[in-house]
């Protein structure tokens, strides 16, 4: 799984985040509301994962590792 929690509580998205990552990401966000999401190492976001981020709107660390998302959805 490309979604995990680091020791400091930050939720990390790494590499390609496929559709299956949506559910664990949501569970992590539900468990710790307000937790940071680090997506610098994420090279590809599936729509379902993106949708969870849109819905929860957690604070983000770093620019998104997915170049397309960085370029076209800077306000995300």
């Amino acid at each position, binding site marked *: 799984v490309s979604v995990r929690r680091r020791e400091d509580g930050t939720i990390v998205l790494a590499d390609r985040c496929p559709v299956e990552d949506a559910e664990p990401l949501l569970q992590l966000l*539900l468990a710790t*509301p307000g937790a940071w999401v680090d997506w610098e190492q994420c090279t590809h976001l599936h*729509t379902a994962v993106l*949708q*969870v981020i*849109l*819905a929860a709107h957690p604070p983000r660390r770093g620019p998104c590792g997915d170049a*397309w998302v960085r370029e*076209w959805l800077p306000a*995300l």
Partner: protein
Amino acid sequence: MNALHEQFVLEARELIHEATNDLIGMEREGTSPERTNRIFRAFHTLKGSAGVVELPSMVLAMHAAEDLLAAVNTRKIGVTAAMIDQTLGCLDQISRWVDAFEMHGSVPADAGEHAEAMARRLRALLANIAESPSVGLDHQTPATPVAGPLPEWISRLLGAERQSISRHLQQQPSMLFAVSYEPRTDCFFQGDDPLALMQAIPNLLAIRIEAREAWPALADFDPYSCILRFVAVCAGNRDDLADVFRLVPDQVQIVEVPVEALPRQGAPAFDGGTLDLVRAIVEEQRLVLTASGERDDLTGRAGAAGRTAANALRHGRLHHLAEPVEGAMETTVASVDVAALLSALDGAVAFLASDTEPAAASDGRTVRAAEPEAEAAGISPSRSPRVNEDRIDALLNLSAELIVAKNAVVHLARRADEELGAHDLARAVKRESETIERLATEMHEAILQLRLVPAAQVFRSFPRLVRDTAQRLDKKATVVTQGETTEADKTIVGRLFEPLLHLVRNVLDHGIESSAERRAAGKPDIATITLRASREGDRFVVEVGDEGRGIDPEAVRRKARERKILTEEDLAALSDEHTINLIFAAGFSTATEISEISGRGVGMDVVRTTVEQLGGRVSLTSRVGVGTTVRLDLPMNIAMTRIMAVEAGGQVFGIPMDAVTETVRLRPDRINRIKGNEGFVLRDRVVPICSLADLMNLPASPNSGGATRLVLVLETGGKIVAIEVDAIRDRLEVVLKPMQGLLSNARGYAGTTLLGDGKVLLVLDIKELLP
């Protein structure tokens, strides 16, 4: 009917009208949360008020429709043509019940059955659609390029991304396309990754991702149900774009965006959506300010309202309006007096109101096509007191009597002068009577103003009508209305409906080509019908224009020959322009087949008759292959008629001035006798002479021997004729009263009016009199 019932009828009609417009808009441009919500609310309110006035059958039908719309509103089901048809049908039924309720205080006895049948149909629809959740309208609506206004989602995206898009176009001019992609909620289970499709769009210029509905609480959120909507603008060509979405054609809408639609830098964004929105926000702030509240919190409210309004104005790139609003806000906060800010907001609203109209008109299409009454959509309409029409008419009658009474004073002045020789007194009375005349006329005009209603009242039914008729004919057409704020007397506006209906049906039936023909001619698939109202001097001009196949003068000539509308010589002498106007002649039809829609061409005859009864004229211009425009030239008011009082056979008659082109004194040698009829030559035309005394079966005056004779030259219905009279008396402006009682069916009379000396003057309808 008590006040509650009256209020219900008024309110129901408004709600029906709004919901109808929104449903049509939804079908044409797709859904938006605001729109579906508006429709839902209209049905909900209708249901509620039907309950209040105790109409259970109406409640039953509305309840089923409401359930259906609630499902649409929460995106449980998509919008289908069948759903729109059924809900519109439901509104039609409700509208008929409201009419019946107004007339009889109850709905027809069979209303219950109808209501149950309708509820069943609506519920069946709910069940059907629920099984196939993503049946969307989208695949049938795309119009390329869009005729009329851009859908709101496009203008919003264009507005926000204007700079980057125009920069790209400057470097590399190309076609622009907008894409709206609403993936099915279960798309993740199909293995779809909508974002990947968006990433595959070639030459992407702007993209936005939004939720189709409000985000649920995170705990209730289903991560595998897609509720996103993607909108994007890109350059390039349509095929490449369509190729990206080839597997999801039912979920995507592709629209070509005319480059002109891009808001220009520096210039105010003249897209109706933005300006209407800005105006709505500014007006809202005005409400916030005037809402009753503690004086203490005024400072806070004024600050918030002022800032919001200024921001909205800046968003619409109206900086010159934003600054005064901010200045006034500071004054208001300092002085704890709302006056300054209120007047600044009023100024901004007035500018927006005036600015949206001409700007929209200048590009030939108004934003109103989509929402016939944009101001009704989100902006509180100006509230004017509802006054019973009868009271206005009573006032009008009184003011008319006053004008007549004034005429009597003039008469008295003349008597004082002639019979008593009191010249000074006569002059003084005359002077005073002039003052009274001025005041009476002003008052009369002011009261006439009360009867003015905007052309929108008659235009508003047409978007719906055109939609239904076009659907039945399997054609595509949209209505663009212009100048709907132009006002005219309510009688005129009210009676315009029938002629406009015939004209629009004729356009749809005969004027507009089939889709295949249109494509072959290089015309857009969707035909545009323009309804335009305007003021020209004191005339109220309404035009119906289409860009269809035009009218072929040769075909008209052939038909006129077959139907013996005119003799062969007369036909040969007519120019093409005059020839095509023959379609208004009685018993004329250019359609090869008689159709259900526009009948046998009697419609055009009705158009002419109705318009002429209102004191107007009909004319038509057309170019083959390019289109046709029918122009109805009407008076603004019908209450005052200018007449000429004439004597014939020892009696006095009134003749409407608009029929008289000139008066001529004829020496006996100018008169020729042709086969027992008299006539004379006027500017190379032979004008037959009829004696008015003969026409009225009165004894001819004996002195018509060798003296000069007096005739009025009249042009009516395309014919020219001279009416001989014994003398011409006064020219008067009178209020014509229709013939009443036993005389109401008498032919030849336009009506009666009271003269200054108390005599009744019969005013003739020359057209009916002539043989």
